[in-house]
């Protein structure tokens, strides 16, 4: 009897599938977009993939590429260290919004300022997923989480972090900055591909935030999850390219 195997990017590691993310989680879609981008660019043998702590750590054996799982927020400096030591590799730092915008924000800011020749892919699902759904820097106003049970009060906790806007503001013109969404995987793949190309050509820092869903902690069904990603999140987090070296930006 033959079993239908779902279509997977060539650089995915089949032995570790099905993946370990929760049902409905957006990580699988982001990693699919990334996998296809790697395949299309033919750079599987050059990739050093770093994943953070939080749900992103579940990607530690996801690809047939050399991978290191680091600490919370520390993937940016580890990949920076790798790339500084070996310029021939293509370094990808993969993290969540807590890792990039809270505990590792100093690393993101300074790697961006230094225009490190690495690619950071940050998955924004508006909460800390692995630890059980606490408020994140990206939690939307009035959104309920385990540490904002009555809804996020922006008076006392501030407004959601707009990461790509910040990165775009502090990087030179040679950086690439975009925000995509798992609700448009083709576009997300295009952004990730451009981000990788920007590193390959030695231009500078490249950063893609991916809007993503967390139905487990959001306690939403499929329709509600999709609505939150497509409507609520994009109202605050504008999808599009913020910085494209020597190209007209889209969005």
């Amino acid at each position, binding site marked *: 009897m033959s079993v239908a195997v779902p279509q997977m990017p060539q650089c995915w*590691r089949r032995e570790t599938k099905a993946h370990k993310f929760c049902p409905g989680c957006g990580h699988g879609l982001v990693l699919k977009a990334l996998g296809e981008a790697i395949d299309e660019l033919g750079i599987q043998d050059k990739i050093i993939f770093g994943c953070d702590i939080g749900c992103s750590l579940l990607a530690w054996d996801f690809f047939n590429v050399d*991978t290191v799982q680091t*600490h919370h927020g520390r993937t940016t*400096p*580890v990949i920076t*260290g*790798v790339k500084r*030591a070996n310029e021939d590799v293509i370094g990808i730092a993969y993290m969540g919004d807590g890792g990039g915008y809270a505990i590792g924000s100093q690393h993101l800011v*300074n790697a961006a300022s230094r225009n490190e020749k690495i690619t950071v892919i940050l998955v924004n699902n508006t909460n800390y997923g692995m630890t059980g759904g606490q408020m994140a820097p990206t939690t939307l106003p009035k959104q309920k989480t385990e540490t904002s049970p009555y809804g996020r009060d922006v008076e006392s906790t501030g407004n959601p972090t707009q990461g790509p806007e910040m990165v775009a503001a502090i990087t030179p013109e040679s950086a690439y900055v975009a925000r995509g969404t798992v609700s448009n995987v083709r576009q997300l793949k295009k952004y990730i591909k451009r981000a990788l190309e920007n590193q390959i050509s030695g231009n500078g820092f490249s950063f893609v935030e991916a809007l993503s869903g967390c139905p487990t902690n959001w306690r939403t069904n499929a329709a509600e999850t999709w609505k939150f990603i497509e409507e609520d999140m994009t109202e605050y987090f504008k999808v599009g390219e913020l910085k494209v070296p020597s190209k007209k930006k889209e969005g």
Partner: protein
Amino acid sequence: MTEKPIQGEKRVFMTGNEVVAWAALAADAEIMYGYPITPQNEIMHYWTRLAPKHGRRFLQTEDEISAGFTTVGGVLAGRRAFTATAGPGNTLMQEALSMAEMMRIPIVQVVTQRGGPSTATVIYSQQEVTMTCFGGNGEGARIVYSTSTHQELYDYTIKAFNTAWKYRFPTHVLGDGYQSKMRESLTMYDPQARGIDMVPTEPSLGNEGTPGVDREPNHLRNTYNTEDELYDVVTNIMSDWEKYAPEIAEYQEYDVEDADVLVIAHGVVTRAAQAAVKELRAQGKKVGHFRPVTLRPIAEEQLRKRVEQAKSVLVVESAYGQLRKILDNAIYGLTTPITNFFKPGEGVTADEVVEEVNKLL
């Protein structure tokens, strides 16, 4: 290939921080990652002046957390990489060192101890012993060389790279601000000319070939799903550590054979202890000195033997018992009385040691 930084041997008179930079160059260190903190700064100053002339690299990071983790990245990429720090910077670096301990990443860290806790003083102390040996959420699978002279700073900085890459444990050169800032004579040399071969490095990430096609991918992690998985990993690390500890441990002894009073001190304080023993011996007093060179692992067997032989032990350190705790653990069960002479954050003179020993005779 660029010219060797040091041809043959060279007699010099320089500060300890300059010595460390030269030693790292001579050891073929390829990249340093660092963040400014006193009294470590001049290691970076000299490295950044010397490195480009010899094709070496440097990255100034945003903090010591990043300096630690970028060093981890450099080592994973297969480079002989190192960092240097002190005090609160060492505190921040413990996170990366914990990862290095778990994943057997041969990171080299030079520590120039300053006062503590907190910001404290910027020049001298021996208060980073506990942190350097046991910092982070781990079991202390680290190797710590406590140096006492500029010659040792040179010798052990070179040796630290070889120890790290041979055994794959984080390796530390534990100096202090006095050693960093004072000038002293020493002989610098090309390690190869003295028959010291540098242990080859190899990448953990980014080997030849396409992963999954030509070879298996390297998937490195420090997180585990089950207690049993972690148990196996940690017991393997510690069984290696225990296996290699006896061949790594180093010590020095001065007039210990017939000593009634045994003075134990490490690092720069050994110099006061050595001078005191010399003076007391000239007066015909039976005093000896045991100096652990490695604080982790400690030369347990030899230490126990000497403590057992003595009638009395004096522990001298520029900290409030950080060395004493390591000693207590190693000599547990022995009944030789022990007296403390603790001067946290202050230097110790030979006269002071003589005075303390005389109280015990």
